[in-house]
């Protein structure tokens, strides 16, 4: 069951105990993204420091466990890395999610985010998983403007 299950313990853990949740100051950019098909929403802020280091990712939102856990995992992966490093992870995560279950995830790049691999088989859920990650990408771009 574990192999098949989309509900890896890790996802439930993040859903029940979201990391880094809440909107914090200071921030360079804030974005608000909505998934119109299911009503999931997220507001997300980023603060980037010297040498492109991501100092904080703070967020607030509502939605299913997948979308909420994805934001929590994102927070953990992003803070402390450089923008460049995190964008590489975002790209790999996007590739995995849009791969319709056909793609072998690169665990070295993805870390905990690999737990979402099962989601890729359900097109309707892919957007849930990507919501916060797309918001993050958007916010990073704006923070550099």
């Amino acid at each position, binding site marked *: 069951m574990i192999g098949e299950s989309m509900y890896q313990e890790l996802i439930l853990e993040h859903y029940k105990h979201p990391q880094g949740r809440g909107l914090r100051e200071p921030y360079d950019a804030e974005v608000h993204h909505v998934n119109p098909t299911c009503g999931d929403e997220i507001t997300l802020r980023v603060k980037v420091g010297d040498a492109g280091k991501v100092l904080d990712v703070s967020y607030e939102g509502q939605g*299913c466990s997948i979308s909420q856990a994805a934001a929590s995992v994102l927070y953990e992966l992003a803070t402390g890395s450089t923008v460049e490093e995190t964008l590489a992870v975002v790209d790999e995560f996007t590739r995995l999610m849009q791969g319709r279950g056909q793609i072998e995830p690169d665990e070295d790049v993805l870390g905990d985010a690999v737990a979402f691999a099962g989601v890729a088989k359900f097109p*309707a859920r892919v957007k849930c998983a990507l919501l916060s990650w797309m918001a993050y990408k958007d916010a990073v771009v704006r923070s550099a403007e």
Partner: protein
Amino acid sequence: MTSISFDVEKIRKDFPVFSRELPDGRPLVYLDSGNSSQKPNQVIETMREHLALHYSNVGRAMHVLGAESTDAYENARDKIAGFVGAPSRDEVIFTKNASEALNLVAYSFGNPANTDPRFTLGPGDEIVISEMEHHSNIVPWQLLVQRTGATLKWFGVTDDGRLDYAPGLITERTKIVSIAHQSNVLGTVNPVAEVARRAHEVGALIMLDASQSVPHHPVDVTELGADFVAFTGHKMVGPSGIGVLWARAELLEAMPPFLGGGEMIEAVWMDRSTYAPIPHKFEAGTPPIVEAIGLGAAVDYLTEVGMDAIEAHERTLTAYALDALRDIPGLRIIGPDSLEQRGGTVSFAIEGIHPHDVGQILDDRFGVAVRVGHHCARPLHLRFGIPATTRASFYLYNTTGEIDALVRGLHHVQKVFA
């Protein structure tokens, strides 16, 4: 719980999918027939045999295979005409799904090349739908008003999930009313004969989206009083790729052609064409031949089981489900919670748990297949202030035991997210 005469175990044996196991040995509990139904061997085997031994193009071919295919295809039309009480077989148009049937009718309006006053449409003219419609009965009309400048109006939905029917919304300006016979979310069966009477009173036409009624109840298009009726093969134990538009012959004759091409013509010159008589006028190109034949087999299958018996069986299941779901704390049924004027589709919300999570855990742990989301009826969900619901929908092959499995699953979901 079901009557002796309805042998659901025997019926299940006709559906090969029930003999399979899901990964990790989960059984399959299929409560998603409102989305699409499973197929009996009788349908699968009819299609296989036709593809293997009798296939060829229809109508135009003059050889043995062509005659066999044409016979089988046109016999399917006879069967479907009989199944819904169509006064004439020529009134049965094969489309690829219910959505195409709805679009076909929408595109008949406001076509500058057609002057029949019933189908002209422009600013000042009105189209009436309802807030409980499937997107396939909303978007075609939105696209139509964008093309023509006509106005789209709609009936609301009451708190208990009934059509908020106000006859006054249908006026002299109304050209067409298009509503669901049965809601794919609420299960509500609408008072369509009454609405049809009102539409005709003001000279408007009426279309029924019968995608959720024809598979589950005995339906007679004449009794409904409708001008157009759309339904779809894949929800009635038939194949994908085939839908039906029934319409009164006189209207089909007055409508402009929709798709142009082979089969729908009488004679073609480079600069003009004349069109074939109905039904072929609306069947451009090679039709879904084997799919229509499969739908014919589906209709034979349903008729043999008996539509009255199927309706009664689903009623039993629905009563059982409503009772069982009512007992779950924090569960709210969206739609009528009595059996009156409703079919076997039960949607609900569970306090504090997103339907996506409900559906996925039911599937992951218990093999229970339900549908979660807005079920292509987003405006209806907006009306109830929720982004999504969980929906269980029943068909002839379902059992009360499967509803028990759903309920057990829901208890588990609540535990996981407690």
